Structure formats: C-alpha cells, structure tokens
C-alpha cells in the first residue's frame, strides 16, 4: 500500500498532519509493535493490567494534547489529525491506540462544548501533565447497562431505560447509577459523564459533567474481559451519591444530546480511522506473509489468487481511508472551525486560562449561558447534520471493511491465520469492536438515512 502522504498530497501541506503521521509511525515501531502480542496475552489473564509505561511515552510526542487548542498550549489538531494518528497506531495495535482514542473522545466532549471554565480547569492540565511526563487522561461515559444505542440517538433517547441520573442541588448535582463499557474509565483522570437530570424527560435534561478521579461517591466497578482491544480497559463506573459541583457541568443543562451529536460527529470519523488502521495492519501482515511463504514454484505472493486478494484488500483499505478523511475534514472545516472562531485567537494567553480570576468568572452560570448561546449560534445545524451523517458513514463503512479485510488476511495465511503469533487473528478480534462502539453499525446506518437521505 502506498504511503498515505503520497496518495493524499494535500496532507503534505499540513505541517501537523505530517508530524502526526511520522510521530505515529515512530511510536508504533518503538513502543507498540514490540509489545502488542505479549500485552494481549497478559491482559487475557489479567484484564486490570494497564500498560502505563507505553502510554507515558505518548507525552514525548505530545499525543495527549494533539486536539487541545493552540491558545491553551496544545497542538491545535482537529478530527483529521486525530484520525491520521489513530490509523497509524492501530496498524500496530487497536488496543493500545484506543487508549489515546478514548482520551480524545472524552476530551472532544469538553472541547466542542467550548466551556471556558472546563478549558482552564481541566484541559490545561493535559498540557502541564505532558511537560511533566505524567499523562492526564480523559474518558467519555455514555453507555448505560440497559441503554447503549438509545443514548446516542435523539429519537430513541426519550424511551431509553436509563439507570444513571443527576439530581439538582443548590450548588451542584448528585449522581446515582452506573455507566458500563467505558473505555479508559478505570484509568481516566477526568470522566465526561452524560446523564439525564430527569429520567422521564431525558432529551430535555441530558447534561454533561466532568467527574474527576477520586471524587467521593465515584468508584470503578468491573473491568470487562474483552475479545479484543484488551489494552484499553472497558470499565463500569459506579456513582453513589456522588456530588459534582455546578461548575463541573459542561455547557448548559439539557444540551447533553447536542453535545453527544457534536462529539459523535467529531469522533466517528476517527473510529473509521481506527478501523482503517486495523484493516491496514492485517493487510500488511498478510502481504508480508505472502512475500515470505515459500511454495514449490516460488513464493505464495506469486500465485494469482493471492495477488487478487491482496489487491482487493488494498482497495478496501483505501476506500475506508477516504471515507474517514472526508468526514474528518468536513467536521474540522464546518463545525470545529465555527466553534474555535468564537475564541479570540491572538492575545489571549494560556496564563489567563489558568488564572483564578478567570476561572471564577467563567464558572458563573450567567456567563456560561451567554457564552454558550454565542457558541451555539456559530454551529450551522444543517452542516452539523451533514457532518454527523458523513462521520457515521465513515464509521460503519470502515468498520465493515476492517472485518472483511481481516477475514481475507486470515485466508491468505490459511490455517496459520488462526495462530496468535501471526497477529492477524488479533487484528480480527480488534476489528469486530469497531462495528459496535460509538453506536452499532445498524444505528450508524439509520443516522446516515436521517441526516444524508431523508433530511430529518
């Protein structure tokens, strides 16, 4: 497969895109590929193990602050940059890569809310942490035990069986209930938790809260033993009379579903990139195997059926890549740029964001309300739904491709394809999850219908 920069020369002009691809490649070769197999085996016996040492190395490459705006010290990347990094890392191991992916998902919830208090209080921590080589990790908690698909769709949410709710108090909220399958949930420093204030009116009261690690009443329940992507924990989050101060609410009360849609518009493209990376990883290993496997009359790659299969796989990976690039560029241009243009881009220094006075001012409800109304006015609803549709399309098409490509790779390896040492089976296991998380592919198809076909 040709290098992504050769196939997409427009990316060469984007300095950050070049940096992300190159550093992703280096990180993968140095820290992922040598450990992926061993780590996968280890996590089968101990799902609580966290590859901290590997993840820490991400600080050197500034992976944690990749999407953090430049004006608060980040690299200022968008969905495209996150996607490019995800493809690169996932071609090594979907599990390790998804620790970064889930971090970006949680962070996206805060970033698209444009909540200045959250920027100053939580997001700046990421930049500080990176300098000190102590990664600050985010997660997004959306799925509930009895509501998965429901909480990602505004038509289904009103009938969802929700178990987590936030009760409003004078100066904050009391959270009770559970979230499940939360990627990074067990290791995150900050969890972005979305829940209803009134379970009978979830759509009108859905709201987002930042729950820091160690908050009284918040604990980690079960860590699941998954089929694949094991390096990235899927944890249960338990809330028992967990008090969250009002300022930790991200955006306004009742804007939770809009936030979810914004986040999914931003993140389903990168999920497509995760799937593309996994497919590419399987393809590259199959190619390598075919080049090295001897036959009586040469090598396996000399056989026509192998060439046909590899060509098909190559084409499918390329299709998946094009889908996520299109979705990510659209989101960055028409949604993220709109939000970020709300911020004064020059003259506002990182220091202001960290100052106590600034934080005290921005946490006040009257400010939040006006500011958020201003930010919302910068989001073009029509463009948002197109972006939502394109990212959902990228997600389901790339993940379906990933599963198909992995199955094809296994066939090239024949009965050796099932063996752990060849890693193709691991890509297969990792690929299946991309058809499930961030909304099942069935829900994503319906989202495409609603947003791109029926104009709902």
């Amino acid at each position: 497969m040709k290098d992504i920069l050769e196939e997409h020369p427009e990316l060469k002009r984007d300095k950050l895109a070049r940096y992300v691809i190159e550093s992703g490649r280096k990180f993968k070769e140095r820290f992922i590929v040598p450990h992926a197999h061993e780590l996968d085996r280890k996590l089968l016996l101990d799902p609580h193990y966290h590859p901290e040492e590997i993840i820490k190395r991400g600080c050197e490459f500034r992976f944690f602050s990749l999407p953090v705006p430049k004006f608060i010290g980040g690299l200022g990347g968008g969905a495209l940059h996150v996607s490019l990094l995800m493809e690169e890392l996932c071609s090594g191991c979907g599990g390790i890569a998804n620790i970064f992916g889930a971090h970006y998902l949680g962070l996206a919830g805060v970033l698209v809310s444009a909540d200045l208090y959250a920027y100053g209080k939580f997001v700046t921590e990421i930049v500080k942490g990176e300098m000190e080589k102590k990664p600050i990790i985010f997660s997004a908690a959306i799925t509930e035990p009895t509501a998965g698909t429901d909480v990602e769709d505004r038509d289904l949410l009103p009938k969802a069986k929700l178990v987590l709710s936030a009760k409003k108090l004078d100066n904050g909220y009391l959270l009770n209930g559970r979230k499940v399958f939360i990627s990074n949930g067990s290791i995150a420093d900050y969890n972005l938790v979305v829940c209803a204030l009134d379970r009978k009116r979830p759509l009108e009261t859905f709201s987002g809260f930042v729950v820091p690690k160690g908050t009284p009443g918040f604990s980690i329940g079960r860590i699941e033993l998954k089929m694949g992507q094991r390096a990235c924990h899927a944890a249960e989050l338990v809330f028992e009379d967990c008090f969250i101060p009002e300022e930790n609410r991200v955006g306004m009360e009742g804007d939770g579903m809009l936030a979810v849609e914004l986040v999914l518009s931003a993140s389903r493209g990168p999920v497509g990139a995760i799937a593309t990376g996994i497919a590419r990883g399987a393809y590259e290993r199959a190619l390598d195997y075919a080049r090295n496997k001897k036959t009586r009359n040469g090598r396996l790659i000399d056989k026509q059926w192998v060439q046909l299969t590899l060509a098909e796989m190559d084409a499918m990976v390329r299709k998946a890549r094009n889908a996520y690039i299109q979705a990510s560029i659209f989101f960055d241009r028409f949604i993220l740029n709109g939000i970020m243009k709300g911020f004064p881009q020059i003259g506002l220094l990182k220091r202001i964001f960290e100052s106590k006075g600034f934080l005290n001012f921005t946490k006040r409800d009257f400010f939040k309300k006006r500011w958020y109304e201003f930010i919302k006015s910068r989001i073009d609803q029509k463009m948002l739904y197109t972006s939502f549709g394109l990212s959902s399309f990228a997600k389901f098409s790339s993940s379906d491709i990933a599963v198909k490509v992995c199955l094809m790779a296994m066939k090239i390896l024949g009965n050796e394809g099932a063996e752990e040492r060849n890693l193709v089976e691991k890509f297969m296991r990792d690929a299946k999850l991309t058809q499930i998380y961030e909304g099942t592919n069935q829900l994503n198809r319906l989202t495409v219908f609603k947003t791109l076909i029926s104009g709902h």
Partner: protein
Amino acid sequence: MNGQERKIIIETAEKFMRKVFLPHISTFDKFPLLPPPFEPSKKFFEMGIHELVKGMDILSVVEVLMKVSEFCAGLGAFLGYMIAGEILKIKSGIETDGITSIAIFEDEDLDLENGGRFFVKMEDGKLRGIKKSVFLFHLADIFAVFCELDGEKTIAWIRREDVNVNEPSGLIGIRACPCSDIVIKNSVQPLKLTPADKLFHYSISLISLFSSACACSTAISAIEKASSYAKERYQGGSLIIEYDAIKLMLSHNRILLGKCRDLILKTAENFREDEVLWVDAVRTKIFASEVAVNACLDAIQVFGGYGYMRDYEVEKRFRDAVALSLQPFDSIRATLYLNSIGTK
C-alpha cells in the same frame, strides 16, 4: 448404528457435556495459557466413542460432534481430530493404543491447488523436517506424518519420542483443541509407511466435514443465544427483536444455518470410500465456513457491547467459528483444491 442407538449416544454426549465439561469450558478457552483442567480424551472414550469409530458411522460421529459443539466447539474439534486419527489408524492397519495426531501442514505452502505436495520427504529410509499446525500434539502417542516418498504421497507413522514439540501455537478459537508445530528429530525411522495418495484426500475431506459440523453447530447456538437476548433487551422502548435490523439478521442466519446443517448431515450420511463423495465434504466445508463465521459476527452484533465481552460466550463462538473456518484449510484453498481433484 440405527436411529435409536444414535439417539442414545447423542443424549449421552449432551449429559457428558453438561456434567463433565461445562464447568471447565472457560478454562479450556484460556489454554494454552492455563493448563487444561483435565484430559478430555479419556472422558470421550467413557462416552462410548470407540463404538462409533469401529462402526465407521460418520453420520453418528457428525451428530455427536454437533451436540458437543453446541456447548464448546473446541471440544468438538478435539473429538473430531481424535476420531479422524483413529479412523486413519484403522485404514492404515496400525494397531497401537493411544491418540493419533495427524500432521499435514508445513513451513511451505502445500500447493493444494495442484492436489497437494509435501516438502517433508522420506530419504534413505529416514524422515526429517517440521510439520505445522498439528492438533492434539500434547496427548498423541503416535503421529501420522504426511510426506513424500519417491514422489508419492505417503504417511510415515512415527512415535512420540521421535518428535520435539514446540510451544503451543495459541489459536484464536477452539483452544480446548491445542495445536503446535512439531520438529521431527533427525534420522527418524518410521514405524510404518502407508501409501497415502487416497488417504490424503480422505483425511482432508473427513476433517473438512468434521470442522463444518462443529462450526455450524456453534453458529446455530450463537444465533439462538442472540435470539433469546433480543427477546429480553429493550432499546428505544421496544424489545430489539421487534426491530427490522435484528429480525433480518436472525432470520437470514437461521435460513442459511438450517440449509448448512441439512447439507452437513446429508454429506455425512453419504460419506463412504467413494472419492466423489469426499468432494461433497469439501464443498460443504466451503459453504459452512462462510455461513458460520457470518452468523457469529451477526450474533455478536445483536448483543452489542455485551457480545464482545467474554462472559456472554457469543464472542467465543465467533472465535471458534473463525478457527474452524481455517481447518484444515481456508475456503479459497479449498475451492482451488476441489478443482485440482477434478470437480467442476
């Protein structure tokens, strides 16, 4: 074996699975990382498997494999490979006790589209080389090593002490049926040599049929589990079974799996010495592999996030189906192989 006798042995298999094996299935699934809880072959012999093997009643064997695979396709594969080894031993006139392990695959591609060829050769009465993906290696007393002697396919029967066994490979699924590479020690003199031109095709067909049976059965059970789950799980205020996406997935797979099951049983019933009938077994395998893997993928999809977690056992059925789809070979090589043995 008549219908009544067959029914009894299938019921016995079910009882055995529930009583003896069910509590250990999750441990088997972590093998080779964890030691196996016990040795399954003795338990299978207690079940009366010898009678099936002696009677060469392939239909009954297949039905038992399907019953066992409803619970654990790894144990189904274990039993299948064990029986295939016994049958091969009987056909080759080998009279030793213990388990036989069949060694077919090699470092080099077998060139199945040209009928299959081996790089491991008998030269000057001695055998050497490496065989890959050898099942039941850890329990085998004797190995049936497919090799070439003067350009002809041959089985060299060698003792356990004549091979070194590598670390278990660790497969995506059917982990109760462990697999490894074996290194034949230098200058091994086989116990016996059997001409294997026909036996090679027979073995490939038999293993194809057995793996189809295990894969189909595990996929049926995955779809049934998904169907039960869909009748309990609410989404958007309705049971998910009421959604078209779920209905279509379940019905489509049920139709294909039903056809697949019928085809497997029909092929098993007709499976005799006739080469033309062996071809049916490989054809069945090609169909069953695709159907079973897709059905298990859909079953996980119905479960959503829960399906991806090991507790719900649907993901295990998917992994088992994938592993079985590649035994003894994948569907592309199987199709090319069919052409090589003269079928269109």
